[in-house]
Structures are given as C-alpha cells and as structure tokens.
C-alpha cells in the first residue's frame, strides 16, 4: 500500500517536471524583453494591445457556442446510439476520428466551395453566417474528443432504465434528455468542454481562411512578427484557459449534484 503511494507520487513528480519545465522555459524567455533584466514588459505590451482583448473575447464567445451546440449534437447522439443503435457505434466512432486526419485546410476549402455566397447555403454572405460556419467547423474539430468523453460518461449510468423511469413518470424526450441524462453525464460534458475550449482558443486555419478575428490567427501573427510577446502570450493563454476550466469546474460543483469525477 505504502509503496503504491510512493510510486504514484513519483509518477506525478516526473509528470510535473516534464510538463512544467517547458512552461518555465517559456516564461523565463518572456521576461527578457528588456535587456539585462527580467521585466513584465512583454505582458504589458500584450495586455495593452486592443487586438489581444478583442480576439480573445471573440474566441471565448465562439468556444462557448461551440461547446453548447457541440453538446447539443453529441450528447443526444451518444445517448441514442447507446439506447437504440448500438451497432452503429463503430461507424460513429470512425466518423469522429476523421477530423484528426483530414487537414483543416482541406475542410475549410470545402466549406468555401460549398457554402460561399453563390451556393445553396450562402453562409459566407454575412458575418453572422460566417460565424456560424466557424462554430460548425470547431464542432467538427472537437468531435473526436467530445464524443469519446461523453460516451465514456454515459457508460457509467444506466441510460436505459433512467429513460424508462422518466417515461413512466410522464416525461417526454426533451425532459428526459435535459433533466435526466445531461446532468448525469456532466463529467463527460465537462471534460469534453475543456478540450473544446482549448481547441477553439488555439485554432488558426479555420478562423483565418474564414476571415474571422479570432485568437488563433492573432497568436500566429504575433508569433511570426514579435520576439518576446509570443512567449508571454503563450503563458497568458495557458493560464487563462486553465483558469476558465477551473471556474467551469467550480461552477459545476456548486450546482447541487453528485460529485462529478473530473
């Protein structure tokens, strides 16, 4: 028992070193903007850049939409597949793997051809349409993680019996889905949301080719043209993302439910 715990601490320690040292390396460099001394100049420069705030805000908003719509798509699907169409699982799993290997640029070129201003669904005609397309693209990119996270959480509850219990009490499917299933796969929804959030905050190709003012392209631009700010930005983005996730988790904990395992 004792030796298990020592081994576990060891694993965590090694993991921590592996994960933290590169971040320290980045941080150290970000402090070197002024010659010969450590300063937070790079951070000041980042924070005073209006573009940083607007793009970060824009991407946060997009992430929020992506998480909401993604969950609305994925949770009912995973639920239905478990309940009624278990034989479709391998097919769905394969589909959700595709976004990992199909280059984002290929997908976005496809969008431009399919949904341009002269197509049957002219999404790029308006800003809001383009934003929608962007959200759809993010949903696509996050499918592999989202689906697995939710499906795993669903394995933990008896979906079939809960459904029947709710049905026998007179509930219709929206109630069943949103009041009885969703809250009980929160752990999966949450970890799917974490990953989605991180994906959206960093994504470059989609936003850039759809010409939306997102954080990914901004990061890229700063990375290509500045020396110290990119490191500061990386640290800031990392910290904010982690913080947001922490908040998300805290919020979900205040929600009075069984403890979520995440």
């Amino acid at each position: 028992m004792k030796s298990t715990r020592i081994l576990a601490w060891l694993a965590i320690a090694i993991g921590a070193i592996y994960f933290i040292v590169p971040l320290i390396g980045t941080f150290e460099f970000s402090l070197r903007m002024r010659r010969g001394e450590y300063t937070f100049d790079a951070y000041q420069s980042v924070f005073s850049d209006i573009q940083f705030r607007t793009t970060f805000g824009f991407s946060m908003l997009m992430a929020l939409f992506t998480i909401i719509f993604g969950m609305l798509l994925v949770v009912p699907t995973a639920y239905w597949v478990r309940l009624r169409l278990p034989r479709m699982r391998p097919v769905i799993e394969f589909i959700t793997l595709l976004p990992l290997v199909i280059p984002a640029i290929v997908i976005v070129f496809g969008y431009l051809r399919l949904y341009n201003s002269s197509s049957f669904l002219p999404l790029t005609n308006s800003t809001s349409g383009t934003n929608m397309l962007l959200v759809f693209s993010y949903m696509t990119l996050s499918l592999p993680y989202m689906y697995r996270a939710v499906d795993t959480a669903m394995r933990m509850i008896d979906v079939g019996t809960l459904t029947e219990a709710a049905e026998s009490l007179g509930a219709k499917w929206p109630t069943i889905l949103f009041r009885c299933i969703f809250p009980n796969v929160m752990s999966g929804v949450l970890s799917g949301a974490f990953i989605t959030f991180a994906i959206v905050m960093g994504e470059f190709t989609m936003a850039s080719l759809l010409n939306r003012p997102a954080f990914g392209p901004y990061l890229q631009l700063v990375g290509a043209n500045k020396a110290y700010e990119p490191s500061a930005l990386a640290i800031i983005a990392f910290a904010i993302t982690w913080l947001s996730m922490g908040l998300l988790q805290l919020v979900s904990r205040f929600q009075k439910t069984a403890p979520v395992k995440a």
Partner: protein
Amino acid sequence: AAEPSAELVEAAKKEGKLTTIALPHSWCGYGDIIAGFKAKYPEITVNELNPDAGSGDEIEAIKANKGNTGDQAPDVIDVGLSFGPSSKAEGLIQPYKVETWDSIPDSAKDADGHWYGDYYGVLSFVVNTDIVKEVPKDWADLTKADYANAVALAGDPRTSNQAVQAAYAAGLAKGETDAAKAGEAGLAHFAEINKAGNFVPVIGKSASLAQGSTPIVIAWDYNGLAWRDTLAGNPPLEVVVPETGVVAGVYVQAISAFAPHPNAAKLWMEYLYSDEGQLGYLKGYCHPIRFNDLVKNGKVPQEMLDKLPPAAAYEKAVFPTLEEQEAGKAAITTKWDSVVGANVQ
C-alpha cells in the same frame, strides 16, 4: 505621376471594400502603405486576409473562393515572381495596366498586364551580434567553426521561395552561372554547412534570433532590417548583404480573376505604383520596382537612401529569370532532403 481616372475612383468607392491577402504590416512597409490607402480613400474599407500566408496560400485562396463574394475572397495578391505566369496560365488573374505602366522595367512585367513586379530585396545575413561576434561577410564564411549551430533559413526550401533563393544564391557565390548547376552547388554548400554542424533546421525569425536558437538567419534584407527595428537593440542585429552571390527576389502584384471588388483592386494597384506607394515600399526597406525611375526623377529623399545597406551591395544583385529560377528550384527542392540530410533520426 498620373492620377487614376475619376470613373475608376467612383466605381471603387461604390464597391466600398478591398480584400487583400498576405500582407504582414512589418513586411516592406505594408502597414503604412495600407494606412496611406485608407487615408486617401476613406470610403473604402480594407479587409486584410491572413497576413502570414505564403504565395501558395494566396493562389489557393483565389481557387477556393471562386464564386464567393464574401469576405474570404481576395481581390489582389502579392506573390513570388514564378506565381505570376502560372496563375495567368490557370486563368486566376485578370489584366490591368496602371498609369505608371511604362516606367516598370519590361523584364518585370507580363506584356498583357496580368502581373507585374512591385518590389524586390536581396538575400542577406541577419545576425544577432550578442552571440555572433565575428559577423560573416560571405556565403563561404557560413561553414566556419565559429558558427556552430548558428545558421538558419527563413523557411523550408520545399515551401518557401525565400529559402530556395538562399540556396540558389549560395550556388551563385560558388561561381556557377548555369542555373541548374547553381542550384546543385548551393545545395552542396548547405550540405557543408550542415556537416560542419552549423545548420539549424528551424525556421528563423525575430523570436528565434532574440532567443538565440538561430543567431544567423538568411532572409530578405528588408525583413532583417524590420526585425532589427522591432527588437531595438535587445539583442542588437546586424544585416549583412554577402559579398558574392547577391540574389534579388522580385514579388509581383496581380488582381484576382474572380475579385469581388475589381475596381477597388485596380485603384489599389494605382496607389501601389504611384510615387507615394512606391516610396512606401522603400520606407519598409524594399526596393520598389520603379526605383531607378524614381531616383532618376529625384523623387527619393536622401535620408531614406541612407537607411539602406550601401548601394554598392545592390549593384552586384542578380535577377534570376523565371527559367533560371525554375531550373534552380527543381534541383534544390527534389534533393534537399537527401543532400542536406537534416532528417536526423
């Protein structure tokens, strides 16, 4: 110089928007040029697509946006020389001749006006003098033991024009005159740099210069100078044009065949090729294509010239023809992996 016609200005204003692509603000003074255009035509908004795109991206953006009049479709492009003729062949660009057409050297324009050069620069060594005390003067110096782990290109020779030209230049420095042979010789030279342990296969830019992982970056002189200004002495950079093998790279401007705002695009061209636009390039350390014409007419202020590397450096500059570029490129891209062998396992 001549002003654009009133009808064109009127038509462009009616379109109200111009979509550009791949124009980093720190590249060739584009930041100020765009600002100047906006100031002059406040009725036209400038929509800037991916400033960090490469020439290939620009071409693909045109193709992908056929039929799209949304904000994603570029009106004008600024691409490496070789992309001019190829896009014309593919029907991706449309002809237009600016008012100053005649003052553009014939060697740098398509006779029909589909594309024409806008600016050029020469390849240079951008050096972090904190780390490198003895600044290299020529291509041959790069194999010296002093420059262990120091030399980087500003791109992957398989994807970046800037990097291919670097190899080609190194070949010219060896005294080769035949383009294909120059390519091979350049490749051989980079193989030597690599064997000496000097080559760092990271893409060099201002951050890696500052951080020290690429103390010497081979890049267009105007980029080097812009980086020097941004870093402002932390660390200090020096931009050196090599003594031999000075290769000039010409970029060309063109209007998309599917431009949603063709008149705004034409107006943009007029602005770029006006004296004001051309001097904007020069402020960004680029040689505008009408440089000789401007100098001849005394339009270039002396303090602008003083900020450039010595004029002597440019006198030696070689402008590879398209055919020469093709020949050099073929040799370099196909054999880069095997000869330079940076595929460390």
